[in-house]
């Protein structure tokens, strides 16, 4: 029994633990019963075979048959599988190569993205903990950088539309306009009540 066997056992247990707590993921995994997905970690010469079943997924370090699909990615690419993607977006990471059944690859990657897996710990068996740690930090930094860029773009676009292009009102103008509408509505209601009262008094004096 090698370190790799122990790593696969640990990763298998981690995935199954999360799947057991998520009924949806468990049902999706059960639908793939009888299919085999090979995941090759490029640059390490390692391939792990993932076999979903009704109760759990099994990880094998060797497989004598032909897998239904083969996913190939660098450690950096595989680490991206820990981030969920919105519905309708391709769950297979951009840099990941897929051969065989692409639909199966998509279904499988979507399930994996819904599960919290410590890929860093797994990959460290092949790349060393230092590199795996750096890969993980790079991914985290890339995530932070992406959020930062989106936020900056958002603010720049808003400023251009409001200040320079004068196409959209500013938040202050919208608030002032809204307050004006509320005041007008309130005064109209008061006027209506006065009219009703005056109309009533005139009717009684006749």
């Amino acid at each position: 029994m090698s370190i790799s066997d122990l790593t696969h056992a640990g990763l298998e247990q981690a995935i199954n633990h999360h799947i057991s707590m998520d009924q949806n993921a468990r049902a999706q995994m059960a639908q793939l019963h009888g299919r085999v997905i090979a995941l090759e970690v490029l640059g390490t010469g390692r391939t792990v075979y993932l076999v979903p079943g009704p109760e759990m997924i099994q990880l094998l370090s060797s497989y004598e048959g032909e897998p239904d699909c083969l996913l190939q990615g660098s450690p950096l690419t595989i680490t991206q599988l820990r981030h969920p993607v919105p519905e309708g977006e391709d769950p297979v990471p951009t840099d990941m190569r897929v051969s065989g059944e692409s639909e199966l690859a998509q279904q499988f990657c979507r399930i994996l993205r819904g599960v919290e897996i410590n890929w860093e710990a797994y990959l460290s068996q092949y790349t060393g903990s230092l590199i795996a740690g750096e890969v993980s930090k790079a991914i985290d930094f890339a995530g932070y950088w992406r959020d930062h860029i989106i936020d900056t773009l958002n603010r720049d676009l808003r400023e251009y539309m409001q200040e320079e292009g004068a196409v959209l009102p500013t938040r202050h103008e919208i608030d002032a306009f809204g307050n004006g509408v509320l005041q007008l509505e309130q005064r109209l209601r008061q006027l209506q009540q006065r009219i009703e009262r005056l109309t009533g008094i005139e009717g009684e004096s006749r």
Partner: protein
Amino acid sequence: MNDKGTTHFGYEQVETGEKAKRVREVFDSVATKYDLMNDLMSLGIHRLWKRYAVELAGLRPGHKVLDLASGTGDLAARYSGLVGPEGLVTMTDINAAMLDQGRARMADRGLIGNVEYVQVNAEAIPFEDGRFDCVTIGFGLRNVTDKQKALDEMFRVLRPGGRALILEFSHPRSAPLKWAYDTYSFNLLPLIGKLVTKDEDSYRYLAESIRMHPDQETLRGMMEQSGFERCDYHNLTGGVVAVHRGYKL
């Protein structure tokens, strides 16, 4: 088993017909706490041993597997996932109480559809020749009275090209490990058995039966005698456990 009609039950010599009855009593006694005891006895390592054996089985979707002495179904549960909905796992045990435990546990885990349950004596397997792609026995062969007969039967029901796997306690390779293992299994193991199942004798039997089981090379020779080819074995945890593999070619 010897020519005088006696065999060993642990370190005791008993009549050949007596062993199956005594083994049944042991497993009747431990059936309900079998999983817990396995974890305590092996410190949880039995899961890794079983995982390793399953990899060596080389199962693929559509395969038919016969699992002898299934116990509570740890191996069968894995096979069920690997052979897919088109495959079939025949889960068996000579002991009805163990088989009941195994069936209940498999159902609890949602493993239905590609598993069948049959009470089977490994020395007289009630299936036709060449039916299975793979035949396995995990931690069961040492309890069989006539091991050679069981190996012959495993060979018979395999299809040509199929393989047999035997996962069993064996003999540690190094002297220090052997000493530590003996100390643990003859002193601590019966004590754990006494505390958990209130049955010290059954666990003493387990320890003794392991010592009486053929060593790695002897078992490989017995497999070859039954007709298996390309036989090999893999020592796990320094030989505390070994997985023997042989093919019907």
